[in-house]
């Protein structure tokens, strides 16, 4: 049997790695919900499995998503992942071509140059040598870039990178050593026994006279094996756990098994362990502007993995979802955070709900749920009422007097179970009305009604509803020359995917300009209900900074579609008109009659005293 003691570190490391992975994954699979498990079983023998494998190839090996962010960064990841993958695969083929068996111990293809030192008469061997040298060079170029990136991250399109933990740093250093050590071992082997191609034999001839000796020969193979073994042992305890876990997550996603269940489950574990701490999402987080630099998703996940969660890390987040849209692994950062926030210890008193009357004495076609936030911006509510009236809609305002919150603010702060009483009461109210459509002015309510209430009534945000009324020709509107810019609210845009209807409505009424950071890249206004940790001054700072980035120089009016955005931006005291789409429409309907009260500022102020 082909064996040498030096293969032990590698073999033991591999065994340890496999045992730990198996134990962890089985535990996580067992904590999947029934729905999630059913989805895996149902979709296992379908094309979804193939498309999962395809995605693994494109993302985990070629790193296509990262390349879209930055070519150089993409190349770096690809050369390491795909290169290493090729070394293993081609190594197996090479080994098979020599030993004609696929049942060799796993260390044979890894240390093949040790076990097959002699040159064979086989012309194929020269080709294998060449190919393997080429792949090794490819991997080494990735290592060199990774090393360079630590000091010059700007060239990789990143302003910030993650600060790593000691275990991560050790694993990283070991990883950097693996391939140079392989190069060394193969080159020394080539110097002594011949063989190898341009790289290993080239370096080998340089080492021939001084370095290459029997001692350095065996020592270099030991070093290579130890570096591999160490890396494997450190892997499950470092961020490199993402390498195998991401593969599983991609499959689960393709099988449709990753639906959010409201609590920490196996999916949460797979998501959390799929984060490579690459730090690509960091630059998207506005809280960095305030100097809060330890709460971002990679830090949350890491602290979760290490069981070191603090209140700040968990709670100090806007849940704006900006990091989710930039995550190259596609981790649902918002859902994970929500699951982590879930806290069943808090008790909530819902006594008042008993007195809420959910019967209806009219039979409206449309229900209008203004929402708690809209009650704080009555201009929006009044405008919507004017719009319903102008379009002659048989509607009912459901939360005028006895308003119950939609429940999402509580859900986002970790009290999802406790919000159920409110959810059920609202559902009862909506269903008793007999209406076909539920319209709300608040994107927070919209998101939860649409995605979590399971209503059999159509749910629309008022931007969508107004868009429909306009299409149906129910509103007599005229276009003005007003120059406006639109701000996508986080909950309506990124978190609910409604981008086009608001734009259509505005474009029919005014000259719409787009800010560079729009749609899924839009900034958060800073007023998020999901963050109870920021002071009002900090929120204001975020709002002022966002306004500065959103509003073009020649524009005096910012149109938004969320009462919270409106209030947050208005409270900055900046000389900019902050208007909701509903108000824009209502002013237009009244032929500009109420314009003064909304357009407080008319011309762009000069900067001097």
């Amino acid at each position: 049997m082909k064996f040498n003691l030096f293969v032990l570190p590698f073999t033991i490391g591999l065994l340890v790695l496999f045992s730990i992975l198996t134990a962890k994954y089985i535990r996580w699979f067992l904590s999947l919900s029934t729905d999630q498990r059913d989805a895996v079983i149902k979709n296992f023998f379908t094309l979804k499995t193939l498309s999962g494998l395809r995605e693994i190839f494109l993302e985990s090996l070629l790193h296509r998503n990262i390349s879209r962010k930055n070519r150089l960064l993409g190349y770096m990841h690809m050369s390491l992942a795909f290169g290493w993958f090729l070394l293993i695969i081609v190594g197996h083929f090479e080994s098979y071509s020599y030993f004609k068996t696929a049942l060799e111990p796993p260390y044979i293809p890894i240390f093949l140059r040790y076990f097959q030192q002699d040159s064979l008469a086989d012309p194929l061997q020269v080709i294998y040598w060449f190919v393997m040298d080429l792949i090794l060079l490819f991997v080494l170029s990735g290592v060199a870039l990774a090393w360079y990136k630590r000091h010059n991250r700007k060239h990789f399109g990143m302003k910030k990178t993650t600060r790593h933990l000691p275990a991560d740093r050790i694993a990283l250093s070991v990883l950097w050593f693996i391939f140079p050590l392989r190069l060394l071992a193969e080159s020394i082997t080539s110097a002594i026994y011949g063989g190898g191609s341009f790289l290993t034999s080239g370096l080998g001839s340089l080492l021939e006279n001084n370095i290459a000796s029997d001692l350095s020969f065996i020592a270099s193979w030991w070093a290579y094996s130890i570096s591999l073994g160490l890396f494997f042992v450190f892997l499950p305890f470092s961020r490199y756990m993402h390498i195998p876990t991401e593969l599983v997550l991609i499959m689960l996603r393709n099988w449709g098994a990753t639906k959010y269940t409201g609590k920490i489950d196996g999916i949460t574990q797979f998501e959390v362990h799929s984060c490579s701490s690459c730090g690509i999402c960091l630059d998207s987080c506005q809280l960095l502007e305030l100097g809060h630099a330890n709460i971002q998703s990679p830090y949350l996940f890491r602290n979760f993995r290490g069981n070191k969660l603090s209140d700040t890390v968990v709670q100090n987040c806007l849940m704006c979802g900006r990091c989710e849209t930039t995550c190259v692994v596609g981790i649902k950062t918002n859902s994970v955070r929500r699951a982590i926030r879930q806290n069943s210890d808090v008790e909530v008193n819902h006594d008042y709900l008993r007195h809420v009357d959910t019967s209806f004495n009219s039979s409206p076609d449309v229900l209008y749920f203004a929402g708690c936030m809209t009650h704080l911006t009555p201009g929006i509510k009044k405008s919507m009422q004017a719009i319903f009236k102008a379009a002659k809609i048989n509607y009912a305002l459901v939360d005028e007097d006895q308003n119950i919150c939609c429940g999402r603010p509580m859900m986002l702060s970790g009290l999802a179970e406790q919000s159920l009483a409110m959810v059920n009461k609202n559902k009862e109210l909506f269903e008793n009305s007999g209406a076909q459509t539920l319209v709300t002015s608040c994107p927070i309510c919209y998101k939860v009604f649409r995605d979590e209430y399971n209503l059999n009534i159509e749910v629309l945000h008022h931007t969508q509803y107004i868009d429909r009324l306009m299409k149906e020709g129910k509103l007599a509107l005229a276009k003005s020359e007003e120059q406006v810019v639109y701000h996508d609210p986080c909950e309506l845009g990124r978190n609910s995917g409604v981008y086009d209807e608001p734009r259509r409505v505005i474009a029919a009424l005014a000259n719409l300009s787009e800010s560079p950071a729009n749609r899924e890249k839009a900034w958060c206004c800073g007023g998020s209900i999901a963050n109870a940790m920021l002071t009002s001054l900090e929120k204001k700072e975020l709002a002022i900074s966002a306004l500065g980035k959103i509003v073009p120089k020649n524009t005096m009016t910012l149109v938004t579609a969320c009462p919270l955005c409106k209030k947050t931006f208005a409270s900055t005291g900046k000389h900019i008109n902050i208007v909701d789409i509903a108000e824009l429409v209502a002013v237009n309907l009244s032929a500009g009659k109420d314009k003064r009260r909304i357009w407080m500022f008319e011309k762009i102020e000069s900067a001097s005293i």
Partner: protein
Amino acid sequence: MRALKKEVVIIGGGPAGLEAADSLNKLGHAVTILEKEGKPGGKLSNWHKLFPDNVSADGILKQMVHKISGDIQLITNVKITKISREGTKHSVWFNEGKCIQAEAVLVAVGFDLFNASLKEEYGYGIYDNVITSAELESMFTGQKSLATVTGKTPERIAFIHCVGSRDEKVGFRHCSSMCCVTGVKQAIEIKKRLPAAEVMMFYMDLRMHGRFYEDLYLEAQEKHHIQFIRGRLSESSENPDGSLLLKADDTLAGSPIKVKADLMVLLLGFVPTDFHRKMGEEFGVEIGSDGFFSPCDAHLDTNSVKTNGIFVAGACTGAKSLEYTLADARSASLKIHEFLLQTTSANILN
């Protein structure tokens, strides 16, 4: 004295500016007042009567303006564009290219009333029967009638304290210190005009700190039966008849309450003006966390700022009653006089 005659420019022709102009003039300096409106008087010109003794604001203002004659130059409708300094001379630029030079500049720009639309949940600008304390004064002076928008005599009137003050959500943490007493004075005035009306005050706590202010509070309760409800308004909505539904937490009774009112009066806080921000940004005058000017020393020198030759007086360093505004203006005049004497002796020595 006449030999010392130095140019002083006063920015702002409100009570502080007028009072300082008179004092500096009497101390022998050549004074020019730059006023942004068409006439002097500032916010005082729109007020009806003054707390705590109900004297006529107009009467007081007339006496002040009367003193501004002769040597004092008053330029109205001024829009200042720039202030610059060369050596000891300040140049104040205004109205497209006009410039006036002075040895010392006194900034007496006062304050702005909080823009009530920013507290949108109270419905100002959205619900017709929500008015501000300033608009109520103009109803008292007869410029508008004391009635709802539809011309009805209001039966229930609610006053809301701390609108734009003590409210970090709108960016102002400070107490404006004058609105409690203004509200009580206005509530009494309403009861005098409409004895049948029901008047309610929604307050956080009453800050009746000046001399005789407590007497006014007692009179409001005992003589006029004005209701004081401790609780902050959370939101208001409009009934179909145009009346308002107020939602608040009664923090004494510990329960949420809903109240109907025909007219709602917002007691607006004092907030810094745009001029404050610009003086801060462009001229380096120090601004406090409330946005008002911060003088060199809060106790020993309330009228100088770090920039040499620039002085501040009146409510531009924080909310003040008329009494304190005038005293502060006279104090600033002395400070400026001392400063001008010093620069003169320095020049003679050179």
